[in-house]
C-alpha cells in the first residue's frame, strides 16, 4: 500500500488536517459499532465520496490500496465458505451453498476494511506530512509521537526506492524470486531482506543525525508553520460528524443498526 501525499487543491486546502484526522476516527468508530449491511454500505460510499472530494482518482486510490482491497474481498469469500452450512441458503453453486450469514457477515468485514482503507488513503494522500504532524500535535498527541508518524511517512518513498534497487541488484546475480519451491523462495528473500534492513537502519540513523543537527529536540517547544485556526467549514464538518455519531450511538442503544436477524435466520 502506498501512502504519499499529493498537493490536491480540493480537500487538502478545504479542511483543517485535524478535521481530517477526526474524520478518520469517525469512519473507524462508526464502522466498528454499526453492523447493518446497508448502514455499512452508506459509510463506505461516504468514504469513497471523500476520495473523489479530495480530487483523487478512484482508480489510483484503488491501485495504491490494492493489497487492502484484496484482503477485503478474500475475507468476504472466506466468510461465505466458512458459513456455507448456516442460515438461509441464497444460492447453490454445486456442492457450495451461499448462505445469508456468509454473505452479510462477510460483507460487514469487507465493507469495514474497504471503508477504513479508502478513508485512510483519502486523508493521507491529500495531507502533507507536515500537516499531519501539526494536526496530531494540536490534538494533544505528544511531539515525539507526531514526529514518529511524520518521519515514518517520509521514509516510505525512500525505502520503496531502496527495495526496488536491492531487488534489481539481486536479480542481476541470477536470483529468481518467483521460481522454486516454497522453502527455496523463502531462502532467496533473505538476499533482499538483509540489505533492506541494513539500509533502513543506516537511513534512519543518518536522518536522526540530520534532524538533530537542525536543532530538533523532541521535548522542546517548536513552531508548526502549518498551524491555522478552524474555519466555518471545519466546524460544520465536526458538527455533522458529531451529530451522526450521537445518532448512531442512540440507535445502537435502542437496538437499531445491528445485523437484522431476519436477514440471516433460517
Amino acid at each position, binding site marked *: 500500500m502506498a501512502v*504519499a*501525499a499529493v*498537493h490536491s487543491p480540493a480537500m487538502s486546502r478545504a479542511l483543517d488536517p485535524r478535521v481530517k484526522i477526526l474524520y478518520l476516527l469517525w469512519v473507524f468508530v462508526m464502522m466498528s459499532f454499526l453492523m447493518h449491511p446497508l448502514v455499512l454500505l452508506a459509510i463506505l460510499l461516504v468514504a469513497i465520496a471523500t476520495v473523489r472530494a479530495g480530487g483523487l482518482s478512484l482508480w489510483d486510490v484503488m491501485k495504491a490500496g490494492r493489497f487492502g482491497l484484496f484482503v477485503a474481498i478474500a475475507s468476504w469469500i472466506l466468510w461465505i465458505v466458512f458459513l456455507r452450512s448456516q442460515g438461509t441458503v441464497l444460492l447453490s453453486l454445486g456442492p457450495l451453498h451461499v448462505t445469508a450469514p456468509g454473505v452479510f457477515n462477510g460483507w460487514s468485514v469487507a465493507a469495514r476494511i474497504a471503508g477504513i482503507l479508502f478513508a485512510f488513503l483519502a486523508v493521507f494522500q491529500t495531507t*502533507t*506530512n*507536515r500537516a499531519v504532524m501539526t494536526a496530531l500535535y494540536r490534538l494533544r498527541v505528544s511531539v515525539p509521537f507526531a514526529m514518529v508518524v511524520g*518521519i515514518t*511517512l*517520509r521514509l516510505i*518513498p*525512500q525505502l520503496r526506492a*531502496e527495495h526496488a*534497487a*536491492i531487488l*534489481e*541488484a*539481486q*536479480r*542481476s*546475480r*541470477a*536470483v*529468481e524470486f518467483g521460481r522454486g519451491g516454497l522453502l527455496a523462495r523463502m531462502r532467496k528473500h*533473505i*538476499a*533482499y531482506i*538483509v*540489505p533492506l534492513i*541494513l*539500509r533502513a537502519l*543506516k*537511513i534512519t540513523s*543518518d*536522518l*536522526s*543525525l*540530520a*534532524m*538533530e*543537527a*537542525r*536543532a*530538533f*529536540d523532541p521535548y*522542546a*517547544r*517548536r*513552531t*508548526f*508553520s502549518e*498551524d491555522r485556526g478552524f474555519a466555518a467549514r471545519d466546524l460544520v464538518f465536526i458538527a455533522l460528524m458529531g451529530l451522526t455519531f450521537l445518532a448512531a450511538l442512540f440507535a445502537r442503544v435502542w437496538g437499531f443498526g445491528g445485523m437484522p436477524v431476519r436477514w440471516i435466520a433460517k
Partner: protein
Amino acid sequence: MTPLIEIRNLSYSYRRQKQQFALRSINLEIQEGEFVAVAGRAGSGKSTLCYALNGLVPHSFGGTLEGEVFVCGLETRRESVPSLARHVGLVMQNAESQLVGLSVEEDAAFGPENLNLPTHEVALRVGQALRTVRLDADPGRSPWTLSGGQKQRLSIAAAIAMRPQVIVLDNPTAELDPMGKEEVMATLGRLNSELGITIVIVNQELEEILPYATRLVLMNDGRILCTGQPAELIDRVEDVRRAGVRLPEIAQVAGGLRARGCWPGSLPVTIDEAARKLEKIPSFPRPAQSSTAPRSSRETILRMDAVSFSYPREAPVLREITLTVERGEFVALMGPNGAGKTTLAKHMNGLLVPTAGRVLVRERDTRNARVAELAKTVGYVFQNPDHQLFARTIAEELAFGPRNLGWAKAEVETAVKRGLEHIGGGHQGEEDPFFLGLAERKLVSIASVLAMGPEVLVLDEPATGADHEAALRIMSYLSDLHRQGLTIVIVTHDVSLSAGYADRIVVMRSGSIILDGTPNQVFHKRELLRTCSILPPPVAELSERLCLPDFMCRVDDMVEHFTGGR
C-alpha cells in the same frame, strides 16, 4: 583576534572502540570568514572532526572525548546539539538522507521551526534561504524530484535558514554530477564572500576547492598532517600523497615533469600558470597510437537497435538508441543526471526491456530471455555495494551467483577461490563483508558478479564516493580485468577516470547519444560537451591552450609529450 573555532588537544574514540582513536591531538584555529577545506583518505577522521564541531561528537555518538572544542565561544561538550545548531549548520554527504520534509518549503522550515520562531519569521527565513542558494523550485514540490545538486543546495538552505555563523559540510559533492558539484561550490563561494559565513568543508577533490578555499587542512590517521594555503600545500607533493589525496591534474603534469628535471619551481594551481611555464619547455610530439585493436575487427557482443524506453505514463527516457559494444572494449557512458545512462545500462542485462527496438546480447533478444540467463553473459554491478551484499562471509557472497546459476559444488568452489584472488588483500573468505571499507566492499561486489563468469561487466559509478586511493584500487582492478580480455562498460561522471581508463566514451543527453568516440575525440568537442554538463579534464583544456599538434586528455600523455619518454 579570537578565533571563531578553536580546537585544543582534541582526541576522540567512538563508543566500544576505546583503543582506536578517530581523532588524535587535534589543534586548529579557524577565524571568522575563512573557507577551510579538509582533505584526507577515508578513515582519516575528517567526518568525525565535522561532527565534533556541532556537538554530535560526543553528544550523539557517545565515546570518549579529550581536549576542548570552542565554536562561537561555546564549548561543544557543555552545550547541547540543538543549542549549537543555532551557530553551526551541518550538511552531510548524502543529500537524500538529510531530507526531512516532503516539500521543499517544509524541509527548509524544519530548522527554524525547531528554534520555536514565530511562523512569519519561519516563512521569512525560508524564503531568504531558498533565494540565497538560488533554488527557484516550487516550494510545494517534493524534494525527491530535485536533481542531486538542487537537493544538496536545499540542505544548505535548510542550514542557513537557522542563520548559523559556520557551515560545516561533510563531502557534500561526492555523489553529484559535475553540474551539481559546480552549483554547490559556487553557492558556498557566495555564502562565504557575500554573507561572510565561515565554511568548513570536507572535500577530496582539490580541483573543486582550489578556486574557493583560503586554507587547506590535510589529515592522516586522525591527525592534522599539515595546514596552509592551498597553493603552498599542493607543492608539498609528499604530504599530499601521505594524506591519500589526488593532486589536481595540472599539478600532476608539472609533478611528473619535475620528477624528470623538466619543471622549474613550484607546482601550478591554475591552467594559466601551467601554460605559461609549459610554453617555455621543448616538446617531443609523437604520432598518436591507438591502444586498442580497430573496432571493425572485433566480435559484437551487445547490440542495441533503435532502442526506446519509457515508464508507464511518463516521457521517454531513451529515444531510438543504436549502439554496439564489441568484445574487449572499455566503454564509459557519460552525461548529466537524467540523461538515461543507467536506464541504458540496465537494458544490457535485461533488467529493463525496450518499449521499442531491441537489445541483442550475443544475438539473443533480451525480450525473450530471463535476467538470470543473461547474467551468464552480462554482469551488472550496482553503484552502492550495500544494495548487493548480504551474506555473512565474503566466500558466501562470492558463491551466491554461481549457486543461483545451478553450478556444481566444485565449480562454485573454484569461482570463490578465483574471486578471493581477484580481491587480494590476503582475504581468506571468512570475513564479514559488512565490516570492510567502501573500496573493499566494492571489490567484493564486483568479484561476486565476476564469479558468474560474464563476458561483459557493466558497472554503475564504480568509484563514486570512494577516496582517491580506493578509486585507484577499484580502477586498476578493472583495468587488469580489461587487459585479460573482459569487456567493460562503466557509467560515470568522472572525466579524469574516463580519460584515464576507457578506450571509448559515449555521451548521452535527454535519452539520446550525442557523442561516441575515443577520449581524445570526445574531449576535443568542448562546446558540445558543455551542453551535456561535462567539462573536459583540465589536461584537455591545457592541451588546447597550448595548441599542441596532438590533442591529449591524459596526464601521462602530456608528461610524455614534454619529456619524450625520458
